[in-house]
Protein backbone atom coordinates (compact mmCIF):
# COMPACT_ATOMS: atom_id res chain seq x y z
CA UNK A 1 0.00 0.00 0.00
CA UNK A 2 1.19 3.49 -0.82
CA UNK A 3 1.42 6.20 1.89
CA UNK A 4 -1.51 8.01 0.28
CA UNK A 5 -3.75 4.99 0.78
CA UNK A 6 -2.63 4.68 4.39
CA UNK A 7 -3.63 8.29 4.96
CA UNK A 8 -7.01 7.50 3.47
CA UNK A 9 -7.54 4.52 5.77
CA UNK A 10 -6.37 6.36 8.88
CA UNK A 11 -8.67 9.27 7.97
CA UNK A 12 -11.50 6.75 7.65
CA UNK A 13 -10.77 5.23 11.07
CA UNK A 14 -10.70 8.72 12.58
CA UNK A 15 -14.03 9.66 10.96
CA UNK A 16 -15.65 6.44 12.18
CA UNK A 17 -14.38 6.96 15.73
CA UNK A 18 -15.53 10.60 15.74
CA UNK A 19 -18.93 9.63 14.42
CA UNK A 20 -19.16 6.82 16.97
CA UNK A 21 -18.34 9.10 19.91
CA UNK A 22 -20.64 11.95 18.82
CA UNK A 23 -23.60 9.73 18.02
CA UNK A 24 -23.05 7.74 21.23
CA UNK A 25 -23.30 11.00 23.20
CA UNK A 26 -26.49 12.01 21.41
CA UNK A 27 -27.86 8.47 21.75
CA UNK A 28 -27.21 8.46 25.51
CA UNK A 29 -28.84 11.84 26.00
CA UNK A 30 -31.91 10.86 23.96
CA UNK A 31 -32.15 7.48 25.71
CA UNK A 32 -32.04 9.02 29.18
CA UNK A 33 -34.53 11.78 28.43
CA UNK A 34 -37.02 9.58 26.57
CA UNK A 35 -36.55 6.64 28.96
CA UNK A 36 -37.22 8.79 32.02
CA UNK A 37 -40.14 10.51 30.23
CA UNK A 38 -41.74 7.09 29.77
CA UNK A 39 -42.03 6.77 33.56
CA UNK A 40 -43.47 10.29 33.96
CA UNK A 41 -46.70 10.71 35.90
CA UNK A 42 -48.48 12.75 33.16
CA UNK A 43 -49.97 10.47 30.51
CA UNK A 44 -49.28 12.93 27.68
CA UNK A 45 -45.53 12.90 28.39
CA UNK A 46 -45.55 9.09 28.53
CA UNK A 47 -47.53 8.96 25.29
CA UNK A 48 -45.21 11.33 23.40
CA UNK A 49 -42.14 9.46 24.60
CA UNK A 50 -43.73 6.16 23.57
CA UNK A 51 -44.61 7.59 20.17
CA UNK A 52 -41.04 8.74 19.69
CA UNK A 53 -39.75 5.27 20.53
CA UNK A 54 -42.18 3.50 18.19
CA UNK A 55 -41.47 5.84 15.26
CA UNK A 56 -37.70 5.88 15.53
CA UNK A 57 -37.40 2.17 16.26
CA UNK A 58 -39.80 1.48 13.43
CA UNK A 59 -37.80 3.15 10.68
CA UNK A 60 -34.67 1.61 9.38
CA UNK A 61 -31.47 3.42 10.35
CA UNK A 62 -30.43 3.58 6.71
CA UNK A 63 -33.75 5.12 5.63
CA UNK A 64 -33.32 7.68 8.42
CA UNK A 65 -29.82 8.48 7.16
CA UNK A 66 -31.12 8.98 3.62
CA UNK A 67 -33.89 11.15 4.96
CA UNK A 68 -31.54 13.41 6.92
CA UNK A 69 -29.05 13.61 4.04
CA UNK A 70 -31.47 14.14 1.16
CA UNK A 71 -34.88 15.27 2.42
CA UNK A 72 -33.92 17.80 5.10
CA UNK A 73 -31.97 20.01 2.64
CA UNK A 74 -34.76 19.97 0.04
CA UNK A 75 -37.82 20.11 2.25
CA UNK A 76 -36.67 22.36 5.09
CA UNK A 77 -33.58 24.00 3.61
CA UNK A 78 -31.34 22.55 6.33
CA UNK A 79 -28.14 21.37 4.79
CA UNK A 80 -26.15 19.74 7.57
CA UNK A 81 -22.42 18.99 7.54
CA UNK A 82 -22.17 15.22 6.82
CA UNK A 83 -20.73 14.52 10.27
CA UNK A 84 -23.68 16.18 11.99
CA UNK A 85 -26.22 14.65 9.65
CA UNK A 86 -24.80 11.19 10.41
CA UNK A 87 -24.70 11.92 14.14
CA UNK A 88 -28.29 13.13 14.11
CA UNK A 89 -29.67 10.15 12.19
CA UNK A 90 -27.76 7.53 14.20
CA UNK A 91 -28.21 9.23 17.58
CA UNK A 92 -31.96 9.61 17.19
CA UNK A 93 -32.51 6.06 15.88
CA UNK A 94 -30.34 4.24 18.39
CA UNK A 95 -31.50 6.56 21.17
CA UNK A 96 -34.97 5.11 20.71
CA UNK A 97 -33.59 1.62 21.35
CA UNK A 98 -31.66 2.99 24.33
CA UNK A 99 -34.79 4.49 25.87
CA UNK A 100 -36.22 0.97 26.24
CA UNK A 101 -33.11 -0.05 28.18
CA UNK A 102 -33.42 2.97 30.46
CA UNK A 103 -37.11 2.32 31.03
CA UNK A 104 -36.49 -1.35 31.81
CA UNK A 105 -33.71 -0.58 34.28
CA UNK A 106 -35.74 2.12 36.04
CA UNK A 107 -38.65 -0.30 36.32
CA UNK A 108 -36.37 -2.94 37.83
CA UNK A 109 -35.43 -0.78 40.84
CA UNK A 110 -37.23 -1.98 43.97
CA UNK A 111 -40.42 0.15 44.46
CA UNK A 112 -39.57 0.43 48.15
CA UNK A 113 -36.62 2.61 47.19
CA UNK A 114 -38.93 5.07 45.47
CA UNK A 115 -41.34 4.99 48.41
CA UNK A 116 -38.48 5.58 50.81
CA UNK A 117 -37.54 8.66 48.81
CA UNK A 118 -41.12 9.96 49.02
CA UNK A 119 -41.25 9.29 52.76
CA UNK A 120 -38.06 11.27 53.26
CA UNK A 121 -39.56 14.22 51.33
CA UNK A 122 -37.27 14.08 48.30
CA UNK A 123 -38.42 16.01 45.25
CA UNK A 124 -39.03 13.90 42.07
CA UNK A 125 -35.79 15.21 40.58
CA UNK A 126 -33.84 14.31 43.74
CA UNK A 127 -35.39 10.84 43.78
CA UNK A 128 -34.35 10.31 40.19
CA UNK A 129 -30.85 11.67 40.61
CA UNK A 130 -29.96 10.31 44.06
CA UNK A 131 -31.97 7.10 44.36
CA UNK A 132 -33.17 5.66 41.04
CA UNK A 133 -30.35 6.38 38.60
CA UNK A 134 -27.41 5.25 40.80
CA UNK A 135 -29.13 1.86 41.11
CA UNK A 136 -30.48 1.66 37.58
CA UNK A 137 -27.33 2.68 35.68
CA UNK A 138 -25.22 -0.41 36.55
CA UNK A 139 -28.18 -2.54 35.40
CA UNK A 140 -28.19 -0.74 32.07
CA UNK A 141 -24.51 -1.19 31.25
CA UNK A 142 -24.56 -4.70 29.68
CA UNK A 143 -27.45 -3.78 27.35
CA UNK A 144 -25.90 -0.39 26.71
CA UNK A 145 -22.66 -2.08 25.71
CA UNK A 146 -24.50 -4.25 23.19
CA UNK A 147 -26.22 -1.15 21.87
CA UNK A 148 -22.87 0.61 21.45
CA UNK A 149 -21.62 -2.30 19.34
CA UNK A 150 -24.82 -2.07 17.28
CA UNK A 151 -24.16 1.65 16.89
CA UNK A 152 -20.61 0.99 15.75
CA UNK A 153 -21.98 -1.38 13.11
CA UNK A 154 -24.52 1.30 12.23
CA UNK A 155 -21.83 3.92 11.57
CA UNK A 156 -20.76 1.93 8.50
CA UNK A 157 -24.12 2.83 6.94
CA UNK A 158 -23.18 6.49 6.41
CA UNK A 159 -20.64 5.39 3.80
CA UNK A 160 -23.61 4.73 1.47
CA UNK A 161 -24.20 8.49 1.30
CA UNK A 162 -20.57 9.10 0.37
CA UNK A 163 -19.27 10.12 3.76
CA UNK A 164 -15.59 9.15 4.11
CA UNK A 165 -15.72 6.74 7.02
CA UNK A 166 -13.83 3.48 7.43
CA UNK A 167 -16.09 1.42 5.17
CA UNK A 168 -15.98 4.11 2.47
CA UNK A 169 -12.19 4.46 2.49
CA UNK A 170 -11.93 0.67 2.51
CA UNK A 171 -13.94 0.64 -0.70
CA UNK A 172 -11.67 3.23 -2.28
CA UNK A 173 -8.60 1.19 -1.35
CA UNK A 174 -10.23 -1.88 -2.86
CA UNK A 175 -10.80 0.00 -6.11
CA UNK A 176 -7.15 1.10 -6.10
CA UNK A 177 -5.58 -2.26 -5.27
CA UNK A 178 -8.13 -4.76 -6.65
CA UNK A 179 -7.58 -7.13 -3.71
CA UNK A 180 -11.10 -7.47 -2.35
CA UNK A 181 -10.55 -10.43 -0.05
CA UNK A 182 -7.60 -8.89 1.81
CA UNK A 183 -9.01 -5.41 2.10
CA UNK A 184 -12.42 -6.46 3.37
CA UNK A 185 -10.91 -8.92 5.85
CA UNK A 186 -8.74 -6.15 7.31
CA UNK A 187 -11.73 -3.83 7.35
CA UNK A 188 -13.81 -6.35 9.30
CA UNK A 189 -10.90 -6.90 11.69
CA UNK A 190 -10.60 -3.17 12.41
CA UNK A 191 -14.30 -2.99 13.23
CA UNK A 192 -13.98 -6.07 15.41
CA UNK A 193 -11.08 -4.52 17.33
CA UNK A 194 -13.08 -1.33 17.96
CA UNK A 195 -16.02 -3.43 19.17
CA UNK A 196 -13.68 -5.39 21.44
CA UNK A 197 -12.30 -2.20 22.96
CA UNK A 198 -15.84 -0.92 23.61
CA UNK A 199 -16.79 -4.19 25.32
CA UNK A 200 -13.72 -4.10 27.56
CA UNK A 201 -14.22 -0.47 28.54
CA UNK A 202 -17.87 -1.08 29.40
CA UNK A 203 -17.02 -4.13 31.48
CA UNK A 204 -14.59 -2.05 33.53
CA UNK A 205 -17.15 0.71 33.94
CA UNK A 206 -19.81 -1.72 35.10
CA UNK A 207 -17.52 -3.26 37.71
CA UNK A 208 -16.74 0.19 39.07
CA UNK A 209 -20.37 1.35 39.18
CA UNK A 210 -21.52 -1.83 40.87
CA UNK A 211 -18.79 -1.55 43.47
CA UNK A 212 -19.98 2.06 44.03
CA UNK A 213 -23.42 0.90 45.19
CA UNK A 214 -22.04 -2.07 47.12
CA UNK A 215 -23.19 -4.83 44.79
CA UNK A 216 -21.39 -7.94 43.71
CA UNK A 217 -19.90 -7.42 40.23
CA UNK A 218 -21.22 -10.87 39.35
CA UNK A 219 -20.63 -12.70 36.12
CA UNK A 220 -20.86 -9.91 33.58
CA UNK A 221 -20.62 -12.22 30.63
CA UNK A 222 -23.72 -14.11 31.69
CA UNK A 223 -25.55 -10.85 32.28
CA UNK A 224 -24.60 -9.58 28.86
CA UNK A 225 -25.74 -12.62 26.95
CA UNK A 226 -28.96 -12.67 28.94
CA UNK A 227 -29.64 -9.05 28.06
CA UNK A 228 -28.59 -9.25 24.44
CA UNK A 229 -32.18 -9.99 23.42
CA UNK A 230 -33.41 -6.73 24.96
CA UNK A 231 -31.06 -4.55 22.99
CA UNK A 232 -31.05 -6.21 19.65
CA UNK A 233 -34.44 -7.87 19.69
CA UNK A 234 -36.40 -5.03 18.26
CA UNK A 235 -40.13 -4.53 17.98
CA UNK A 236 -42.71 -4.63 20.68
CA UNK A 237 -41.26 -7.02 23.19
CA UNK A 238 -38.41 -5.87 25.33
Amino acid sequence: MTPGLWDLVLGGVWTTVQLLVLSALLMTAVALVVGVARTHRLWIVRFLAGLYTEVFRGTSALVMIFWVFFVLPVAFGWLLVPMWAGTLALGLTYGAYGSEIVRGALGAVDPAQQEGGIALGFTPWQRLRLILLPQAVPEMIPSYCNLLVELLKGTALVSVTGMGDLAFSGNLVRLALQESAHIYTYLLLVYFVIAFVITRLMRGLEKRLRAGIGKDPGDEHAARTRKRRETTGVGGVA
Partner: protein
Amino acid sequence: MTWDWSAVREFMPHFWDGLLVTLQALVLGSLISFSLGLVWALLMRTPTRWVRWPVGVVTEFVRNTPLLVQLFFLFYVLPEWGLTFSALTTGVFAIGLHYSTYTMQVYRAGIEAVPAGQWEAATALSLPARRTWFAVILPQAVRRVVPPLGNYVISMLKDTPILVSITVLEMLGQARLFSQQHFQFTEPLTVIGVAFVVISYLASLLLRTLERRLVR
Protein backbone atom coordinates in the same frame (compact mmCIF):
# COMPACT_ATOMS: atom_id res chain seq x y z
CA MET B 1 -41.72 22.51 2.87
CA THR B 2 -43.44 21.41 -0.31
CA TRP B 3 -45.35 18.18 -0.58
CA ASP B 4 -46.43 16.92 -3.99
CA TRP B 5 -49.14 14.25 -3.94
CA SER B 6 -48.79 13.59 -7.68
CA ALA B 7 -45.19 12.47 -7.05
CA VAL B 8 -46.50 10.05 -4.44
CA ARG B 9 -49.02 8.67 -6.95
CA GLU B 10 -46.31 8.26 -9.55
CA PHE B 11 -44.03 6.57 -7.05
CA MET B 12 -46.57 4.05 -5.74
CA PRO B 13 -46.16 1.39 -8.53
CA HIS B 14 -42.40 1.41 -7.87
CA PHE B 15 -43.11 1.24 -4.17
CA TRP B 16 -45.08 -2.02 -4.54
CA ASP B 17 -42.27 -3.52 -6.66
CA GLY B 18 -39.79 -2.56 -3.96
CA LEU B 19 -41.98 -3.89 -1.18
CA LEU B 20 -42.17 -7.25 -2.93
CA VAL B 21 -38.38 -7.51 -3.14
CA THR B 22 -38.04 -6.41 0.49
CA LEU B 23 -40.48 -9.08 1.65
CA GLN B 24 -38.75 -11.69 -0.50
CA ALA B 25 -35.40 -10.83 1.06
CA LEU B 26 -36.99 -10.83 4.49
CA VAL B 27 -38.63 -14.25 4.19
CA LEU B 28 -35.62 -15.97 2.66
CA GLY B 29 -33.22 -14.22 5.03
CA SER B 30 -35.32 -15.34 8.01
CA LEU B 31 -35.36 -18.94 6.82
CA ILE B 32 -31.59 -18.98 6.39
CA SER B 33 -30.98 -17.35 9.76
CA PHE B 34 -33.37 -19.70 11.57
CA SER B 35 -31.80 -22.83 10.16
CA LEU B 36 -28.18 -21.70 10.24
CA GLY B 37 -28.65 -20.42 13.79
CA LEU B 38 -29.92 -23.83 14.84
CA VAL B 39 -26.82 -25.42 13.29
CA TRP B 40 -24.53 -23.05 15.23
CA ALA B 41 -26.47 -23.67 18.44
CA LEU B 42 -26.21 -27.47 18.07
CA LEU B 43 -22.52 -27.26 17.17
CA MET B 44 -21.96 -25.23 20.34
CA ARG B 45 -23.39 -28.18 22.31
CA THR B 46 -20.92 -30.74 20.95
CA PRO B 47 -18.63 -32.18 23.61
CA THR B 48 -15.29 -31.36 21.92
CA ARG B 49 -13.94 -27.86 22.28
CA TRP B 50 -12.28 -28.24 18.88
CA VAL B 51 -15.72 -27.64 17.39
CA ARG B 52 -17.11 -25.23 19.98
CA TRP B 53 -14.13 -22.91 19.99
CA PRO B 54 -13.94 -22.15 16.22
CA VAL B 55 -17.72 -21.83 15.95
CA GLY B 56 -17.75 -19.45 18.91
CA VAL B 57 -14.97 -17.29 17.46
CA VAL B 58 -16.48 -17.12 13.98
CA THR B 59 -19.99 -16.26 15.18
CA GLU B 60 -18.67 -13.68 17.64
CA PHE B 61 -16.72 -12.09 14.81
CA VAL B 62 -19.69 -12.01 12.47
CA ARG B 63 -21.92 -10.57 15.17
CA ASN B 64 -19.55 -7.74 16.06
CA THR B 65 -18.76 -6.49 12.57
CA PRO B 66 -20.97 -4.39 10.29
CA LEU B 67 -23.40 -6.17 8.02
CA LEU B 68 -22.59 -3.63 5.30
CA VAL B 69 -18.94 -4.67 5.11
CA GLN B 70 -19.88 -8.35 5.21
CA LEU B 71 -22.21 -7.67 2.32
CA PHE B 72 -19.40 -6.04 0.34
CA PHE B 73 -17.15 -8.97 1.19
CA LEU B 74 -19.62 -11.51 -0.17
CA PHE B 75 -20.57 -9.39 -3.17
CA TYR B 76 -17.05 -8.60 -4.37
CA VAL B 77 -14.95 -11.50 -3.08
CA LEU B 78 -17.10 -14.53 -3.94
CA PRO B 79 -16.98 -13.78 -7.70
CA GLU B 80 -13.16 -13.68 -7.43
CA TRP B 81 -13.34 -17.21 -6.07
CA GLY B 82 -15.49 -18.22 -9.02
CA LEU B 83 -18.86 -18.19 -7.22
CA THR B 84 -21.27 -15.84 -8.93
CA PHE B 85 -24.71 -15.18 -7.51
CA SER B 86 -27.28 -12.51 -8.21
CA ALA B 87 -27.17 -9.43 -5.99
CA LEU B 88 -30.40 -10.44 -4.25
CA THR B 89 -29.13 -13.95 -3.49
CA THR B 90 -25.89 -12.55 -2.06
CA GLY B 91 -27.85 -10.06 0.01
CA VAL B 92 -30.24 -12.67 1.35
CA PHE B 93 -27.35 -14.91 2.31
CA ALA B 94 -25.48 -12.05 4.02
CA ILE B 95 -28.53 -11.08 6.07
CA GLY B 96 -29.24 -14.71 6.93
CA LEU B 97 -25.65 -15.33 7.99
CA HIS B 98 -25.45 -12.16 10.05
CA TYR B 99 -28.68 -12.84 11.91
CA SER B 100 -27.93 -16.53 12.40
CA THR B 101 -25.31 -15.42 14.93
CA TYR B 102 -28.11 -13.75 16.88
CA THR B 103 -30.64 -16.55 16.52
CA MET B 104 -28.11 -19.11 17.77
CA GLN B 105 -28.15 -17.27 21.11
CA VAL B 106 -31.94 -17.46 21.12
CA TYR B 107 -31.91 -21.22 20.53
CA ARG B 108 -29.22 -21.72 23.15
CA ALA B 109 -31.17 -19.74 25.74
CA GLY B 110 -34.35 -21.61 24.81
CA ILE B 111 -32.76 -25.02 25.21
CA GLU B 112 -30.98 -24.06 28.43
CA ALA B 113 -34.20 -22.72 29.90
CA VAL B 114 -35.78 -26.21 29.84
CA PRO B 115 -35.47 -27.38 33.47
CA ALA B 116 -32.80 -30.01 34.15
CA GLY B 117 -35.50 -32.23 35.68
CA GLN B 118 -36.97 -32.73 32.20
CA TRP B 119 -33.69 -34.15 30.93
CA GLU B 120 -33.39 -36.35 34.00
CA ALA B 121 -36.93 -37.60 33.64
CA ALA B 122 -36.29 -38.46 30.00
CA THR B 123 -33.18 -40.39 31.04
CA ALA B 124 -35.07 -42.12 33.85
CA LEU B 125 -37.74 -43.23 31.37
CA SER B 126 -34.85 -44.35 29.12
CA LEU B 127 -36.25 -42.46 26.16
CA PRO B 128 -34.00 -42.59 23.13
CA ALA B 129 -32.15 -39.34 22.27
CA ARG B 130 -34.50 -38.66 19.35
CA ARG B 131 -37.61 -38.88 21.49
CA THR B 132 -35.98 -36.82 24.24
CA TRP B 133 -35.35 -33.99 21.80
CA PHE B 134 -38.53 -34.11 19.75
CA ALA B 135 -41.10 -35.05 22.40
CA VAL B 136 -39.67 -33.43 25.53
CA ILE B 137 -37.11 -30.68 25.00
CA LEU B 138 -37.98 -28.96 21.72
CA PRO B 139 -41.75 -28.50 22.34
CA GLN B 140 -40.87 -26.66 25.54
CA ALA B 141 -38.01 -24.72 23.99
CA VAL B 142 -40.09 -23.49 21.04
CA ARG B 143 -42.39 -21.46 23.28
CA ARG B 144 -39.44 -19.55 24.62
CA VAL B 145 -37.80 -19.21 21.22
CA VAL B 146 -40.59 -17.83 19.05
CA PRO B 147 -40.97 -14.30 20.54
CA PRO B 148 -37.28 -13.37 20.33
CA LEU B 149 -37.04 -14.89 16.84
CA GLY B 150 -39.95 -12.69 15.82
CA ASN B 151 -38.05 -9.68 17.14
CA TYR B 152 -35.13 -10.56 14.93
CA VAL B 153 -37.41 -10.80 11.91
CA ILE B 154 -38.45 -7.20 12.59
CA SER B 155 -34.78 -6.21 12.93
CA MET B 156 -34.03 -7.95 9.66
CA LEU B 157 -36.82 -6.02 7.98
CA LYS B 158 -35.10 -2.82 9.02
CA ASP B 159 -31.75 -4.06 7.74
CA THR B 160 -33.00 -4.96 4.26
CA PRO B 161 -32.41 -1.38 2.94
CA ILE B 162 -28.68 -2.16 3.22
CA LEU B 163 -29.12 -4.24 0.07
CA VAL B 164 -29.35 -0.96 -1.84
CA SER B 165 -25.55 -0.76 -1.61
CA ILE B 166 -25.21 -3.85 -3.80
CA THR B 167 -27.70 -2.63 -6.41
CA VAL B 168 -30.78 -4.57 -5.23
CA LEU B 169 -33.92 -2.59 -5.99
CA GLU B 170 -35.87 -3.06 -2.78
CA MET B 171 -37.93 -0.25 -1.23
CA LEU B 172 -35.06 2.14 -0.58
CA GLY B 173 -33.49 1.28 -3.95
CA GLN B 174 -36.74 2.11 -5.75
CA ALA B 175 -37.08 5.36 -3.79
CA ARG B 176 -33.52 6.37 -4.61
CA LEU B 177 -33.92 5.54 -8.28
CA PHE B 178 -37.19 7.44 -8.49
CA SER B 179 -35.81 10.52 -6.74
CA GLN B 180 -32.77 10.62 -8.98
CA GLN B 181 -34.90 10.37 -12.11
CA HIS B 182 -37.51 12.93 -11.05
CA PHE B 183 -35.46 15.14 -8.70
CA GLN B 184 -38.08 14.67 -5.99
CA PHE B 185 -36.46 13.40 -2.83
CA THR B 186 -39.00 14.30 -0.17
CA GLU B 187 -41.98 12.19 -1.23
CA PRO B 188 -40.48 8.76 -2.03
CA LEU B 189 -38.12 8.74 0.96
CA THR B 190 -40.90 9.81 3.31
CA VAL B 191 -43.29 7.23 1.88
CA ILE B 192 -40.90 4.37 2.52
CA GLY B 193 -40.01 5.77 5.95
CA VAL B 194 -43.68 5.68 6.90
CA ALA B 195 -44.04 2.24 5.31
CA PHE B 196 -41.26 0.88 7.53
CA VAL B 197 -42.86 2.30 10.67
CA VAL B 198 -46.27 0.89 9.72
CA ILE B 199 -44.98 -2.58 8.77
CA SER B 200 -42.80 -2.98 11.83
CA TYR B 201 -45.55 -1.69 14.12
CA LEU B 202 -48.06 -4.16 12.66
CA ALA B 203 -45.50 -6.95 12.90
CA SER B 204 -44.84 -6.18 16.56
CA LEU B 205 -48.58 -6.22 17.30
CA LEU B 206 -48.85 -9.59 15.56
CA LEU B 207 -45.92 -10.87 17.55
CA ARG B 208 -47.44 -9.76 20.85
CA THR B 209 -50.61 -11.70 20.05
CA LEU B 210 -48.61 -14.76 19.06
CA GLU B 211 -46.62 -14.54 22.25
CA ARG B 212 -49.75 -14.36 24.38
CA ARG B 213 -51.05 -17.48 22.65
CA LEU B 214 -47.83 -19.41 23.21
CA VAL B 215 -47.44 -18.48 26.84
CA ARG B 216 -50.93 -19.69 27.64
